[in-house]
């Protein structure tokens, strides 16, 4: 199976998978990070309680998260076409990936920020810190190790989703493994793509873990 064509195909698959995963993860954080911050700040025990907004955001997040990814993938095809001009290929897959992951990322961010000791927040408030200062100078920096660790988990989850999108022509290693392994019974190709996915997940997870522990001043 390891003829030059196949190797080229696999290299292309790796590249597409990385491209989808990384771009989708970044965009998920562009949406999910502010959303997570809003969720924690507007909580009834938060630093700026806003009950209605909090419940509304919470509902939307839960709603999107409860839709199975494959269904979301198909349901947003018109929207994807509108944004990207096509509904197949790796760039098109980024749209449903981001839509599905942003709420998940928001919950991850929320739980990381929740770990910050409320006393520290209160100390900052007793020094006259406003909401913005508490978020940027206390919550985010104090939660940094946990945020990074969760980012690694989010990225690997997005990678998993991207492989799933192979079913509908999403591109990347997922599509290769479906096309060759599932439709053409070339189980060796399928095995190789799965192994490649495993390696990529391990690498992402390890990088996240290293950065998180290295930057954490609580240990040592």
């Amino acid at each position, binding site marked *: 199976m390891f003829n030059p064509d196949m190797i080229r195909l696999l290299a292309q698959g790796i590249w597409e998978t990385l491209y989808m995963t990384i771009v989708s993860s970044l965009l998920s954080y562009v949406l999910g990070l502010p959303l997570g911050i809003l969720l924690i700040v507007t909580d009834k025990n938060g630093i700026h309680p806003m009950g209605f907004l909090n419940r509304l955001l919470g509902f939307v997040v839960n709603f999107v998260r409860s839709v199975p990814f494959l269904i979301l993938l198909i349901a947003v095809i018109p929207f994807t076409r509108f944004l990207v001009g096509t509904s197949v290929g790796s760039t098109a897959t980024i749209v449903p990936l981001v839509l599905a992951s942003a709420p998940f990322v928001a919950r991850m961010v929320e739980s990381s920020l929740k770990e910050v000791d409320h006393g*520290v927040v209160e100390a900052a408030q007793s*020094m*006259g810190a406003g909401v913005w200062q508490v978020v940027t100078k206390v919550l985010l920096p104090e939660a940094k190790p946990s945020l990074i660790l969760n980012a690694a988990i989010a990225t690997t989850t997005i990678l998993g989703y991207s492989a799933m999108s192979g079913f509908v022509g999403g591109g990347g290693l997922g599509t290769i493994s479906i096309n060759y392994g599932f439709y053409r019974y070339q189980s060796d190709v399928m095995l190789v793509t799965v192994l490649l996915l495993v390696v990529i997940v391990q690498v992402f997870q390890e990088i996240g873990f290293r950065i998180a522990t290295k930057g954490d001043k609580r240990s040592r």
Partner: protein
Amino acid sequence: MSEIIQIRNLKKTFASDKSTVIALDGVDLSIEEGEIFGIIGLSGAGKSTLVRCMNYLEKPTSGSVIFDGQDLGSMNEKELRKARRSISMIFQGFHLLMQRNALQNVCFPLEIAGVPKKEAQRKAKEMLELVGIADKAQAYPAQLSGGQKQRVAIARALATDPKVLLCDEATSALDPTTTQSILSLLQQINQKLGVTIVVITHEMGVIEAICRRVAILDHSRVAECGRVEEIFVNPRSDIAKQLIYPHGKKEPVFQKGECIRIVFDGSSSFEPVVSNMVLACGTAVNILFADTKNIDGKAYGQMLLQLPEDEMAKRKIYTYLSGQNLHFKEECANV
């Protein structure tokens, strides 16, 4: 002396779906500029709530807090945040930023106040020096002991040159020796910088060690308030007695014989009165009850002595005590 904090008829209730808790029920207090003021009470008495109302971290349900002549309740958010820089706070749990080293922690309130970085660092170093841990400037909280963490917290609280330092159980997580060192640091800061200090505690020892005046909080109200030594000598409320005699120590009921009660009200220095007297008079006495404390080198409290039967010896003792400028009175022995 002028008053830096005045609290008038302060009430605070916490309402939840099921019940309401009255945490403060009409508290009046005034704290004078430059003093060390203690607030003591049992768990749940409302101490933390009271101290959190003093900088409006907790908004009172009614009543007012006047800080330096201004009603905190009439301020908007922005004015309040500014006022809070003059009312610093330290906590039982230190509440340092774990991802910042000691120096960066002390810089934190200055950053919030918009002080330029260079200036902030200079001030922070000066503060760390003041609290005696300049050598730990680069250490992270996880690498510091409890006492050192509290010192960083004190340095951080003083960085913005506050007028008042609120200490909520600041020594409750520390061992007795460290507690003593932190208390003397607070005392030193009070004298050196003239910062008014409000000390919240449930330990009488803390009050005794550094406070000039004390308010005893009980069931959401002030049970008693006054000079520390006066309350020690003559506690009027039940809660004050309970706090001063923590193990339910009660004055014993005597059998027979003649007794005298010596009252130490701070006018004599703390010295071994009884043993001196025994040496001078050459007679033995029986100490039936004693509760004396050494506050600032002065003796406070009282002592109950059973005198010998012998009239001569008795007279000697009276003469001796009169010469010592001590208050004493004869007590009839209760049966």
